[in-house]
């Protein structure tokens, strides 16, 4: 593939999309209203779809278009709608939850981003700056997703954190030149996500706990020892 570097459009645009995803991750991190969180996630997924398609065009890998389509349909549209519906059913639409303070979560997030850049930076350049920068961004998204999972309380938001984490994964996958099995992998991850979401609902329906606060549930585990 031809040399791509700073100033070249493909690189800049990919980089821009990655930056947007990262930004959305930060938003997710600090967003308090659940419905707004879902919306933000949808936005991130859509960005991912665009990024995938862009990469598909850049590396002229038709497979990546499929990935983008999956991201768009499933994660950008279907899952968010479903989540919103269930929120409505649970009368949680306007619900807000106590996330970490904005500054604290931001600070942690920035620290994680710095860490991921630190880790990726020493990589030698010749593989094309594209992948390297993308990798840094994807890693940051992943770490931020994790951070969200551990800072949020309710199952919903944890699920959303997991899904944004998974967005980071796909971002990394599509960013890598000529990675085979991308579609298969993304489908598989999607299945995983689907199961997570499904599991959240399952739990909501089957357990007679009134809140989704998982810390309540967890005490069950320590009951029978």
């Amino acid at each position, binding site marked *: 593939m031809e040399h791509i570097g700073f100033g070249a459009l493909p690189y800049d645009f990919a980089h821009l999309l990655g930056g947007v995803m990262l930004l959305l991750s930060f938003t997710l991190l600090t967003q308090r209203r659940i419905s707004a969180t879902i919306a933000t996630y949808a936005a991130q997924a859509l960005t991912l779809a665009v990024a995938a398609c862009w990469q598909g065009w850049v590396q002229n890998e038709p497979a990546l278009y499929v990935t983008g389509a999956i991201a768009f349909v499933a994660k950008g549209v279907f899952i968010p709608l479903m989540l919103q519906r269930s929120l409505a059913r649970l009368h949680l639409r306007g619900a807000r939850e106590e996330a970490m303070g904005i500054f604290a979560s931001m600070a942690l997030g920035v620290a*994680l981003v710095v*860490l*991921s850049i*630190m*880790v990726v930076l*020493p990589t030698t350049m010749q593989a094309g700056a594209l992948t390297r920068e993308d990798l840094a961004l994807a890693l940051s998204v992943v*770490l931020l997703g*994790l*951070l969200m*999972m*551990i800072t*949020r*309380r309710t199952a919903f938001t*944890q699920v959303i954190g997991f899904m944004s984490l998974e967005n980071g994964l796909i971002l990394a996958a599509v960013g890598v030149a000529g990675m085979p099995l991308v579609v298969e992998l993304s489908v598989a991850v999607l299945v995983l996500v689907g199961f997570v979401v499904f599991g959240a609902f399952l739990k909501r329906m089957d357990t007679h706990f009134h809140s989704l606060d*998982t*810390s309540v549930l*967890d*005490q069950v*585990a*320590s009951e029978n*020892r």
Partner: protein
Amino acid sequence: MSGILLQGLMTVMAVLLLAIPLLSFRAPRLGFLAACVTCATGAVIDLVFLFQGAAPAVLTVPFGLAGQSTVLSIDGLSALFVLLVMLAGAMASLALRDDHGHPIATAPAVSLFIGAMLLCLLAADAFALVAGFELMSVASFILVVTNHRDHQVQEAGRLYIGMAVLSGLCLIAAVALLAPHGASFSAMRASPPTPGVAAIVLILAMVGPGSKAGLVPLHVWLPPAHAAAPAPVSALMSGAMTKVALYVLIRLLFDLVGPGIAPWWGLPLIALGIASAVLGALRANMEIDIKKVLACSTIENVGLVAIGLGVALAARGADLTALSSLAAGGALLHTLSHGGFKTLLFLASGSIQYGAGSRSLESLGGLIKRMPITAGVMILAAMSLAGLPPSAGFASEWTLFQSVIAAVRLGGLAWQVMSVVLAATLALATALAAAAAVRLVGVVLLGRPRSQGAAEAVEAGPPLRWAMLLSALGVGFVGLFPGVMLWFSDPAMSVIVHGTMLDRIGYLGFTATSDSAGYAPIFTLGLIAIVMAVIWAVLRAKAVPGHRAAPLWDCGFGDPPPWQPFGDPLAQYSGASFGQPLRRMLGTTLLAAREKVDLPLPGDTRPASIVVTLNDPAEAWLLEPIGRLRAIISGMADRVHFMTVRQALTLMVALLVGLLLFIATVEQL
């Protein structure tokens, strides 16, 4: 020739390990008989080996640690212990029956136990040694928990197996340290360890085989385990297993560590030996359960052996061959005699529990009238326990004391003072053991019965009777012909101290140093016999014959109340009261013995009571703190399990971030 004998012993081992357990599942009594016969065969083979001059033999068997072959061998040292184990095994399996005369439920473990000990003795590479050792532990654990419905038995089992795991791990570490270039003993000897490694091996040997042998401070498992196990099993454990542990100790410290060791190597053994001897003998005067008394005296005797070994090791380090061989001879002789008389005593305790239905000193007494054979052999063994001439115990303790006297040659003033203190403590331990022996015999066998069961006691059945008589025969032989025993153990001495006592051994007796006078039990016994004959003749001539029976006087002894046809047990000294002076003298300081007297006021009708509590220092200062520490750590670990999913994920992320930081820093460097 030796090779053939070794193959024979290996066959015996295989039969004990594989065939007889299966047989015992179906037909326990037959299994015991087979085990007895097999052990006897092994003993005969071993005797032939010893008479052949104990030329070492090596044998390689094609299986063992994953895919490798195993080396078995026999030399003078192992042969001596094989003899002891085989004889004890034969006696125990002949006597084997639980306390109600039925074969015990854990019958298959018995021959497994004996076979494992044999494997441990014949092993000539690291894996076989540790495998035999651990198998011995497991089998004996199964036997200890035979009567598992009793809660105390369960506790004893827990403690026992825990200690066994500890000693096993230490032994594994020790031999692994010695075997960097090949696991066979020959390879270990070929590459002796550096002094530092050797010191670690010394510590590990103290903790591992040491605790198995019952050396202070890891002796706490011994009394409860021996009390829990069926009597013949206790006999095996005390008479054979502790000796096998001593064998492993000797093998490690005298043989495998190699020649280059300093005299101070003896000191740890000596120190632990002193502590074990005094503590064990003192506790033997305090315990109420017969088998606990015997177990404590085992601790004492193992301590004596350890003292002898320590002196031998130090002397070897200082190149005093004559002294080291004398000390080693004393240790080995005491191993043999103790193995004999302790087996006998435990068998007797089984016969008492079987016949009188109790093991508590407080509910026995007067058994000498109803159980003459048991009483006879027990008195004989108790003489050894008390170290009175011309018993086996006296012979070995005489040798040990001689070596302690000679130990002043080991070095400067420090060593000399050490040997003086050693002599004093040796004497103290012996005297304490004598008191314990008198207490045991006097309370259990003599006087008047303290319970209905004791009053109606019955003599043991033929198998147990024969087992006791045969062992008594053996003990008597050891006592009367210590020279022969030393001759047997001479090959062992040439293995461990590269010295010999042949220049000091006669058939009738032996001497400490080649030029001085010695000890000839036959002469002592003959003297006593002649004198008794003369006295008897004089009395026949001069005194009025016969005697008149009458009720006890005792400054006006009351008639026994009707509901106690065998007399009021409270009117005679009990085990506790016999030990009371010693408890006040030494127990309060060494064993933290406390008396709580509850004396009702005049007019108050409730009975007065005294409660005595003992607390073994090893438990108070070692086990309990460790247990508390363990509990604290477990508590901390437990907190992790109350974590929510979020906290668990937090841990995950923390680990991830930590690793990322790690590689980041590594790469920046």
